[in-house]
């Protein structure tokens, strides 16, 4: 019974993904169809057009074995032996350096924003408190 429910819910997600692809092709958008479908589903969930119950098991199941779905595409690197060349090494180096840079920047900026938001909240509470005492 549970398998059937999961199956049906994946089918619902399929329909959304299909609608997203249709929108993508129809308007010639650069944004991938599945992302359009993601946003669409999120809006439908928030507006309660689609109850969470309709998709939660299927979505949970798909996300729990998500890694399986990109293995076939990854296997495709067997057609690119050039990855083991000098160019390939440079490519890896570029990704490594960029990862270090973006972790440092994102972490620092995130921390900065957090402190700022915290301060704003504190200020608000302070002013609330002072207006109370006044």
């Amino acid at each position, binding site marked *: 019974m549970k398998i059937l429910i999961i199956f049906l819910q*994946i089918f619902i*997600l*399929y329909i*959304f*993904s299909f609608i*997203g*692809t249709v929108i993508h092709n129809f308007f010639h958008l*650069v*944004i*991938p169809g*599945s*992302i359009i*479908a*993601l946003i669409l589903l*999120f809006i439908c*969930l*928030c507006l309660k057009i689609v109850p*969470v119950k309709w*998709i939660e098991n*299927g*979505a*949970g199941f*798909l*996300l729990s074995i998500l*890694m*399986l*779905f*990109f*293995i*076939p*595409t*990854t*296997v*495709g*690197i*067997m057609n*690119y032996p050039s*990855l083991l060349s000098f*160019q390939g090494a440079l*490519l890896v*180096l*570029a*990704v*490594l*350096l*960029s*990862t*270090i*840079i*973006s*972790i*440092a*920047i*994102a*972490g620092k*900026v*995130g*921390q900065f924003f*957090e402190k*700022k938001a915290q301060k704003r909240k504190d200020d608000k509470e302070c002013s609330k408190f002072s207006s109370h005492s006044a």
Partner: protein
Amino acid sequence: MQQILLAFCMILLTVVTYFVMTRIYKRYSYPYLTPVLTATAFIIMILLVFHIPYKSYMIGGQWISSLLGPSVVALAYPLYKQRHFIINHLFTILGGVLVGTISGMVSVGLLAKIFGINHTLILSIIPKSLTTPVAIEVARGLGGNASMAIVGVMIAGIFGVIAAPTIFKLMRIHSPIGRGIALGSTSHAIGTSKAAEYSELTFSMSSVTMALCAIIGSFIGPIVVWLFQI
């Protein structure tokens, strides 16, 4: 008939390999034992040994790949579950996501350009900090190659997790929110599983950041390519 049999065998090979590698990863949780990595290596070895070309493998493989679309859509579910968390930290999350996505894409694009890497390859690694299913689609949309995009994503994910603790120490990033944003926006799902080791807040922050980066990244990717003439 033979084709159907081959397709079935390839699907079976992929699924079984995946579950065995997941088992191994659960027992020995080193980042470089990520199932995608080990399973891919194993399957490539099998294909090479039996002289099966990638095209024949994909007769079966495409059925598994076809579930990628619905799985990206499924990301709406965790995002919806954490909507209150997002609204509570809206300013911090959006700021962090924007800065993280832009810095990742611009830096890898410029570095690759300086190194003189060929055009298609650069386009493939631009979305390297997005979660894999989205990175595949974004790379295709930009004119890159999907397999290469995954290589970039995997390197960014695994190396990010290995390097993050040192970077946090050197840059004095102590806040759970800052750490979560850094891990989620550069190392996507692999980073998010690392974030779970820090704290609950770091984990939620990282998973929300990852999902939002996927959405925002697919908008920003084309803009970065256009702005920097990559």
